[in-house]
């Protein structure tokens, strides 16, 4: 992936989540040598893939905070990014529902914060008017937020990272930073895949941001991981809601509460829960929270059917304030005073997804103070995805098959994903070739059978077309092998 001599970079970014990928893409517009180290087998492997996928309006953060500022700035540029990069975005809007008079005071307060933050279109609506738009929701009043949208968070991150690669950013997957040192003006970076040097070091390691800082200096902060569990519902329930349905945020913990979110693909998400945990890697799902999610969601949609989930997962919030103190803190994004050249992004939790493109622009400004940025003339934009095959017209589909028959073979029958789309996903510029990489790029395996039918066909494609030994075929990470060799080498006749 990286030539031996290419070990000196202007900028090294640690972490290929949405923040690292957004920064890499933003900086790829300039003549810079950039490397991104990602310890997982693909980008968006942590919290960046395990969140609600909401483009927030900015009503939930106090006026004047970095959270509010970057969220609002980010929100404004998302449509343009979606058009350019080709990830899907839908402005479905959001209802924050008040169940009673008491709660309606809270939505009035939220509206006020929203207005102070400069957000337009906010309206407080009577329960019966909500019902006409959302027949399954019963409430007293609701705050309507039209400027909230949904994306697939992993698609966004992947599109940023793949575009960065197109513009010569080096992504090193399965590469963990083991040690950092700074000598004079250079960072010395030791990884499991060799040693590297850079002038600037961007710490966008998410939940692991403190570990990175502590390799260079004594951190002046703590990280408190807070797990959020989700349930994914079968597509057949997609007509339960049209917009996002949020409760009035619980006062403690500084989270938005368990909400119901439609997704681009027609599934519905329930979640997230909020639970402070000790181990930031503990992404388990629990029986207790699965029940809580259903119970809480039923408070919003009483007709929510049982046994409607097809998957469960969790993501970890990077909180800087512990539970007892209420959970709120602002983002920290700054160049370290003790270690010049180290740019830290700390505590980037929700609305981090929305804020990411604006944060990337801010970091570019910080970088420009120490490196003179020259615009790349040949900057390219690669569309992550035009329409899926299944969304095309009959004529378009026929033409595609005529030109390339791999469009005519359906691999994932739940989602109607073709062999062509699977091969394209496996040919991604990042070189990520796990089953999850396929799933997050083209959706094969994400339907109701959860890979029951398509896994064998994808495995055959990986083995035959991409010549990967079956023992090296992985689910999602370095050691998540799927198989233990062959039962016999030659097929008996």
């Amino acid at each position, binding site marked *: 992936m990286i030539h031996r001599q290419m070990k000196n970079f202007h900028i090294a970014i640690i972490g290929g989540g949405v923040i690292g990928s957004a920064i890499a893409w933003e900086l790829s517009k300039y003549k810079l040598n950039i490397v991104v180290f990602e310890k997982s087998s693909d980008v968006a492997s942590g919290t960046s893939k395990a969140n609600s996928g909401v483009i927030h309006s900015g009503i939930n953060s106090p006026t004047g905070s970095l959270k509010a500022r970057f969220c609002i700035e980010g929100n404004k540029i998302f449509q343009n990014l979606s058009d350019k990069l080709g990830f899907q975005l839908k402005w479905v809007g959001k209802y924050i529902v008040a169940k009673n008079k008491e709660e309606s005071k809270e939505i009035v307060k939220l509206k006020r914060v929203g207005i102070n933050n400069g957000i337009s279109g906010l309206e407080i609506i009577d329960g019966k008017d909500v019902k006409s738009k959302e027949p399954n929701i019963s409430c007293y009043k609701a705050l309507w937020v039209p400027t909230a949208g949904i994306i697939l968070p992993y698609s966004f991150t992947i599109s940023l990272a793949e575009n960065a690669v197109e513009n010569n950013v080096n992504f090193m997957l399965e590469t963990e930073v083991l040690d950092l040192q700074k000598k004079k003006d250079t960072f010395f970076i030791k990884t499991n895949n060799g040693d590297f040097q850079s002038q600037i070091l961007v710490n966008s390691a998410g939940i692991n941001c403190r570990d990175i800082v502590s390799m260079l200096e004594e951190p002046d902060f703590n990280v408190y991981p807070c797990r959020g569990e989700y349930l994914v519902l079968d597509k057949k329930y997609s007509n339960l809601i049209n917009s996002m349905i949020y409760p009035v945020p619980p006062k403690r913990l500084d989270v938005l509460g368990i909400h119901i979110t439609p997704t681009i693909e027609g599934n519905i998400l329930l979640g997230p829960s909020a639970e402070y945990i000790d181990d930031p*890697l503990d*992404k*388990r*799902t*629990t*029986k207790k929270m*699965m029940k809580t999610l259903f119970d809480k969601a039923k408070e919003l949609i009483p007709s929510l059917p049982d*046994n409607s*989930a*097809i*998957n*469960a*997962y969790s993501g970890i919030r990077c909180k800087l304030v512990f539970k007892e103190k209420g959970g709120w803190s602002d983002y920290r994004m700054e160049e370290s005073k003790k270690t010049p050249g180290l740019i830290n992004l700390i505590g980037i939790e929700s609305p981090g997804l929305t804020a990411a493109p604006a944060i990337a622009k801010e970091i570019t400004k910080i970088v420009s103070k120490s490196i003179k940025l020259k615009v790349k003339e040949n900057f390219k934009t690669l569309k992550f995805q035009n329409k899926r095959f299944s969304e095309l017209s*009959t*004529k378009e*589909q*026929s*033409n595609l*098959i*005529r030109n390339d*028959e*791999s469009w*005519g*073979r*359906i691999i994932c*029958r*739940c989602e*109607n994903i073709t062999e062509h789309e699977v091969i394209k996903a496996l040919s991604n510029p990042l070189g990520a070739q796990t089953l999850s990489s396929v799933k997050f790029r083209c959706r094969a395996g994400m339907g*109701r*059978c*959860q*890979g*029951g*039918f398509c*896994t*064998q066909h994808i*495995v*055959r494609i990986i083995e035959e077309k991409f010549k990967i030994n*079956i023992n090296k075929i*992985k*689910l*999602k*990470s*370095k*050691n*998540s*092998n*799927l*198989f*233990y*060799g*062959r*039962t*016999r*080498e030659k*097929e008996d006749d």
Partner: protein
Amino acid sequence: MAELERKKMINLNVDIAIIGGGPAGLAAAVSAYENGAKNIIVLDRNGWIGGILTQCIHDGFGVEETGISLTGPEYADMYIKKSQKYGIKFMNETMVLQIGRNKTIRAINKKGLFDIKAKSIILAMGCREKTRWSVLIPGDRPSGIYTAGVAQAFINLYNIMVGKNVVILGSGDIGLIMARRLKFEGANVIGVVEILPHASGLPRNVVQCLDDYDIPLYLNHTVTYIKGRERLECVTIAQIDEKRNIIKGTEREIKCDTLLLSLGLIPENELSMKAGVEIDKVTGGPIVSQSFETTVPGIFACGNCLQVYDTVDLLAIDAKKAGEYALNKTITQDKNITIQAGEGVRYVIPQIINKPGKIHFTLRVEKKMKTPMLHVISDKKKIFKKKLPWANPANMIDFYLDISKEIINNKDSIEVSLNDK
């Protein structure tokens, strides 16, 4: 424009189009031909004919039908040879995208998009396996968790080994068969965990797949937790009480790299639903009449997309009927009566009768009975009574009954019930 659009399509006209080339589709096709249909086409997603039979290399197929215990591929071959002799057309690697109005099927394969106009359609899509998320097993999300059928495909179709130390959750037939299969391939099969107080699969499979190989069966147990951040490292199993609550103190961790799930099957009916076919909430399959016609005239259903059958032999009986009737679809509907599942009965198929004659009924019971008595009641009168040797939810019960014109004309429904005397 519409003209141009049409030219892009490949159009076909057939008498009978069968969706799915597994055991049900094959039996229906052969039977349709033998009953006079000529222009028959079978559409299948896979690159082979035979559906799941192809990966079922164990024997036990066709015992009742042929008197010989065949392997899955042998059983399929029996039908494939007949089909070929009859000139039945097969389209492989062909996915049906939708069933449109006027029984036109939109299908896709490497040659392009097809519009297949059929006089009758037989749904034979089979079923899919329940996943970890059907029962929401909490924990991490490592690799090494396979549904039993997927594991079977990897081992039997591709010679790929899925694990070394294996725990199996669910004692359905596929789970039991896979316990033995993995043992043959040198895996350490630690045990089969079953939430019910009895095995879900056929008794003969418990003996031949577990007992004969000293594989333990943990009844009234379930997997409560999955651990492993990359590959599976261990599962927690625990004993449960009658209400399926975990009995405290019985949890224990079992080190393993693989968890096979044999949790049951779900009839595949996304296509049927889109075609407007009414689905029975209990079976998960279409509501059908004695001729296996669904609520959409001219669309028939058979095999595991209708209901999950115990054996291929029983499945073939009904699938052949579907093939036979699909041709003679102009049924003079005397009158529709419904068949109600009464006491002790979970469901009965057919759900509708609209023509007198000898009818094959299949049903499942709600719970185990020692000396069950089957009753069929019409207008408060018992029209049929039969003592059964046993009854349990894992085994399908079937019987034949002549339904007279009088019964149909008499009332709007008849009831099938079972009680333990």
